């Protein structure tokens, strides 16, 4: 059984439909990338999956549980999904260590010492332990993203969502973060990543879900998508790369 099963997901606002019957599956240990033109509903899709945005209709099965049904503990669901944001979203008033340890202390109710030990372990994994006492303002974009990933991993999530993890970074830092996410992929961390970055998609994904105007236009391996002949939607997005 898939870890995440999305069936006919719809998100409509009064004036437009952002997601129009999206369906796909994500297996445990799999890394899947969601790509598509700006405004096609990629970020909305991620936010619907952990109920930051309420879907209009459709079903989301996560770890065998229908998380769209009424009465679901949304906060418990969110605590099992790691979410890494485009612009890092680190808490500016907290040190790197506190950023990572906060949820462990407050949500998992671990004692301070244990939470900090676990936080330091994750920071080590992201090669950021030496910055444990620094504040976010003193970090580069790449370092901030590493801390954001450590913060998400510390909660031991079943799956890690990335929302455009490289779009706020310069090319050198992009390489750094791509290498890092690739390492997680090789470590069998289940990943669902929204990105525009073809390089990232090539490095970390088994398959790509290609969205266009709120619908799944194609789902395939990235090399197969790039090899498609005379597909105007795919060609326009990738601009002839591949």
């Amino acid at each position, binding site marked *: 059984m898939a870890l995440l099963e999305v069936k006919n997901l719809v998100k409509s606002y009064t004036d437009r439909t952002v997601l129009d019957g999206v369906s796909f599956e994500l297996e445990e240990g799999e890394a899947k990338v969601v790509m598509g033109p700006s405004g096609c509903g990629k970020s909305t899709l991620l936010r619907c999956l952990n109920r930051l945005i309420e879907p209009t209709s459709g079903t989301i099965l996560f770890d065998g549980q229908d998380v769209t049904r009424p009465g679901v503990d949304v906060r418990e669901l969110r605590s099992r999904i790691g979410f890494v944001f485009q612009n890092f979203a680190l808490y*500016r008033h907290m040190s790197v260590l506190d950023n990572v340890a906060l949820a462990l202390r407050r949500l998992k109710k671990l004692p301070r010492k244990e939470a900090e030990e676990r936080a330091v372990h994750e920071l080590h994994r992201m090669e950021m332990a030496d910055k444990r006492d620094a504040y976010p303002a003193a970090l580069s974009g790449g370092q901030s993203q590493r801390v954001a990933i450590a913060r998400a991993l510390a909660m031991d999530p079943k799956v890690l969502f990335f929302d455009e993890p490289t779009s706020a970074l310069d090319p050198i830092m992009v390489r750094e973060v791509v290498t890092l996410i690739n390492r997680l992929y090789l470590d069998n961390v289940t990943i669902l990543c929204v990105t525009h970055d073809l390089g990232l998609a090539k490095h970390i994904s088994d398959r790509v879900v290609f969205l266009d105007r709120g619908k799944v236009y194609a789902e395939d391996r990235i090399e197969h998508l790039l090899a498609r002949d005379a597909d105007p939607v795919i060609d326009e997005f990738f601009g002839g790369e591949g």
Partner: protein
Amino acid sequence: MSFAGILLTLLQGAGYTLLVTLACAATALVVGLGIAIARELGGAWLSTLLSAVVYVLRGVPMLVLLFIIFFGLPGVGLDVPPLLAMMLSLGLISGAYLSEVFRGSLAAINPNEVLAAQSMGFSRLATLRLIKLPQMARFAVPGMVNELTTVLKFSPFAYTVGIPEITKQAMALVATTMRGIEIYAAIGLLYFGIYRLLLAAVRLIEKRYSIPGFAQE
């Protein structure tokens, strides 16, 4: 009256001025924070109601509200002590202004940090307590200092309800000594001294809780 006698009388008045200022500032802080939190956690209906209350309070002259409370309420059987009357007038009006300072400071918080906290499973209350309020307090320092200064400068109204603060003492001294320029200049200096004292206390707290690079982002 001797110089030492005049000084002692003014210093006694300064003590009352400090008491009125701190009591009204504490009331303002509680009211301002209460309104800001209620607006964050309450629904649209409560937020609209509180906006209306703030709008009215900001438009009422402080002395009018003070007289309603101190001289008006006894007419319906409610005797309000002078210091409490100051807290319910100056403190309440100042709290309305502070709630606006807090609203602006809350709006300055990066919404992605709030989203990140919610996506980890924090409740709205926990997000407010752990992420929003600590940042809001730091952003609000300049506005809070302004409001504290305003409270100090409105504290002389306390003499109208019988609190012997500096201005009331000075008026009594001028009536007996006829040395208006010296005495009023002296209380001007005393007010300035109290202002500097309060400012130093705020700066000390600000320094204690400062975060490298926080305000520069």
